[in-house]
């Protein structure tokens, strides 16, 4: 049956059809929906892990045990998982092991636009890149065959436009793949120098064999049309090329590492000019040039952002698009009305603290009018950065520094930062914004919600007990809506010696939508106080007064607490 599916749903379908038994992942845009979709299939165990490193290790374990397994992550998650990944390339697999890595050119929802293809080359792990949903499903199945035949983990690389585009997928039956027997073999599964030396040889031999075999594989396709121009591309860029240059000859790389160099050479000889069109880095281009293939790529196309049909037409055909420039107000993402983070950032901004923040919805606290955030680097970095500030500036110099992290991110990679701060006698002040979910990626469960991916209740990680056990000197819990209480608490904690943790608790406003009625403003004195919290439901009128938009207000009451004139009224049920 043909069905419209997101690239991510198609990957899940592919895993199901390939007989995958174990999937582990940490949510991350644009990869999250794979795991959410795959858990719905019978015969597949899927879970949220606290981070990508753990998820990867779970997949390795399942593979060693003999089952087909999959681990999914966004591009920056690959950095977290890199440690087990590089050595899993040495051990190889028992049951097939597939790593889905989702890149985000254009940074729709990411802090950088790294190119994961370099990991494939650096770790010597083959990588496939599909160009639409049906291909995504097919490539997953091919990836398991390659994984088992060549005894290697296999990457599937996606990008946002593949992951979050729907196209038709032909569903097929699941292939029931038996669990392979596990046999103890320390030369393969125990990576210490003596055995790893042997495995490194195996890795190299495998890669040479694969690179040779890929020359005749049908996973790379050549379309010879007009021989004036030959395009080399992969993934969703292939779709842009098809639309922008319908008459061009195309070498479509299904396997993006290792490259079928001999076949690319042949293609280059068959066309007059070769142009490589790839998003982000000149990954193909540089390897082709190193192998003596004359081509152009990044002299035409940027290393930044996404490629599009219009850009290809402009760079290759010289058709420039007539774009009307408009000076319109931008519409950046904002914290939702009723977001429990809002009041916290209002307080941090008011107190003029230096805020080392983290990855999540609360990153939005950086934007005007809250403008409360100073630094954001990666998952879990807020704690280390705050500690580093203190070690650089001393206790007095860093008295205004606060680390801010969410509940899911704290569990992901914040805990070790806290251990470090305690161990190294820090005076770090940490705010954990516990909204009882993984917010930005669309509400995924995690260990501190007490619910699993499949919706079962489980032992709930108690964050208060956890930070106590990790050694925090002072631990306080406060309602995230209690802004005056929070300000008082912060002031007293900042004076204290030792590591302090404040857990500001309140579930995400989108979780329980049983909202109180909208508030309203009467006889506004135009002081602008309520506008300082950047609530999307409070609008500044032309005359300077504030008005609450009743269709957006969820009745959190934060603005009422701020109005010194009592002009804001609770809604009536």
């Amino acid at each position: 049956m043909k069905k419209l599916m997101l690239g991510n749903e198609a990957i899940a379908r592919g895993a199901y059809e390939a007989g995958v038994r174990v999937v582990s992942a940490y949510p991350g845009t644009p990869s999250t929906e794979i795991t959410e979709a795959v858990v719905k299939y019978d015969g597949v165990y899927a879970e949220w892990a606290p981070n990508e490193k753990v998820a990867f290790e779970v997949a390795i374990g399942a593979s060693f045990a003999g089952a087909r397994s999959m681990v999914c992550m966004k591009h920056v998650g690959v950095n977290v998982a890199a440690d087990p990944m590089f050595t899993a390339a040495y051990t190889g697999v028992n049951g097939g092991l597939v790593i889905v890595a989702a890149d985000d050119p254009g940074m729709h929802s990411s802090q950088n636009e790294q190119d994961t293809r370099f990991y494939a080359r650096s770790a010597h792990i083959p990588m496939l890149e599909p160009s639409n949903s049906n291909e995504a499903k097919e490539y997953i199945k091919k990836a398991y065959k390659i994984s088992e035949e060549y005894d290697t983990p296999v990457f599937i690389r996606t990008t946002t436009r593949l992951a979050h585009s729907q196209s038709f997928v032909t569903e097929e039956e699941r292939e029931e793949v038996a669990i392979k027997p596990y046999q103890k073999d320390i030369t393969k599964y125990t990576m210490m120098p003596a055995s790893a030396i042997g495995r490194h040889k195996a890795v190299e031999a495998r890669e040479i064999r694969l690179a040779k075999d890929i020359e005749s594989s049908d996973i790379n396709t050549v379309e010879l049309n007009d021989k004036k121009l030959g395009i080399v591309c992969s993934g969703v860029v292939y779709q842009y090329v098809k639309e922008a240059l319908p008459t061009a000859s195309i070498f479509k790389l299904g396997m993006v590492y290792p490259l079928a160099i001999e076949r690319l050479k042949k293609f280059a000889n068959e066309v007059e000019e070769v142009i490589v069109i790839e998003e982000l880095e000149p990954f193909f281009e540089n390897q082709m040039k190193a192998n003596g293939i004359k081509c152009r790529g990044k002299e035409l196309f940027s290393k930044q952002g996404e490629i599009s049909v219009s850009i290809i037409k402009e760079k290759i055909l010289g058709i420039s698009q007539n774009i009307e420039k408009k000076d319109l107000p931008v519409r950046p993402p904002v914290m939702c009305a009723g977001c429990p983070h809002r009041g916290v950032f209002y307080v941090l901004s008011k107190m003029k603290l230096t805020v080392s923040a983290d990855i999540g919805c609360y990153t939005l606290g950086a934007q005007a009018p809250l403008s409360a955030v100073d630094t954001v680097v990666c998952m879990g970095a807020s704690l280390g950065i705050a500690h580093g500030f203190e070690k650089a500036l001393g206790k007095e110099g860093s008295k205004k520094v606060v680390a801010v992290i969410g509940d899911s991110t704290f569990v992901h990679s914040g805990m070790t930062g806290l251990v470090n701060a305690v161990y190294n006698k820090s005076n770090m002040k940490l705010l954990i914004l516990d909204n009882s979910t993984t917010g930005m990626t669309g509400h995924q469960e995690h260990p501190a919600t007490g619910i699993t991916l499949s919706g079962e209740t489980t032992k709930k990680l108690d964050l208060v007990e956890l930070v106590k056990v990790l050694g925090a000197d002072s631990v306080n819990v406060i309602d995230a809506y209690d802004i005056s209480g929070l300000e008082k608490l912060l002031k007293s904690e900042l004076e204290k010696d030792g590591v302090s943790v404040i857990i500001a608790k309140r579930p995400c406003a989108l979780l329980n939508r049983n909202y109180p009625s909208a508030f309203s403003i009467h006889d506004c004195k135009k002081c602008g106080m309520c506008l300082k919290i950047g609530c999307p439901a409070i609008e500044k009128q032309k005359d300077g007064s504030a008005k609450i938009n009743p269709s957006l207000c969820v009745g959190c009451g934060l603005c009422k607490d701020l109005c010194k004139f009592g002009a804001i009224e609770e809604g009536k049920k």
Partner: protein
Amino acid sequence: MKKDLNILIVGVGGQGTLLASRIIGQLAVELGLDCKLSEVHGMAQRGGSVVTHAKLAQKVDSPIIALHDADIIVSFEKLEALRYTNFLKEDGVIVVNNQEILPMPVIIGAKEYPQNIIAELEKTTKKVVVVDALKIAEELGNTKTVNVIILGVLAKNLGIEMEIMVKALQKCVKPNFFEINKIALEKGYEI
């Protein structure tokens, strides 16, 4: 109806443009056409500007609509319609919901919400259809039908038969919401 159809759906994260794109996807199934839909997930969904690309044809390559290649822009919010006019074909149609949602720079008084948006849109194309979908939805007694009302307007302007739209709708909404949505679709179709 034309065979190739590029529909750009724009709005503000949280307005529920996803049901509209699901119904358009189902429409492709009913019409026996190839289809690609490209959505926005993650950060931009939090009240940001959101775009869905929907392409229907015998064979669709790029999931993203190129500049000046949309047959129709369907906007759930006025300012967002203006933001994306560079995607519209010369003779394209703009269906715009007459609703203003102020973006943060306007809310805090750093920028003004543009005046005369409809007049600006009319400079781009002759075919601008303004819908007061929220008002119609309120009259129907269900404000959640805004997107389906707008889809009705879209169907009418693209010459898609009502019967096929109803079929597509039926497959995308829960049975107990079908009747009210069908009425909403018809209301939009009548505009």
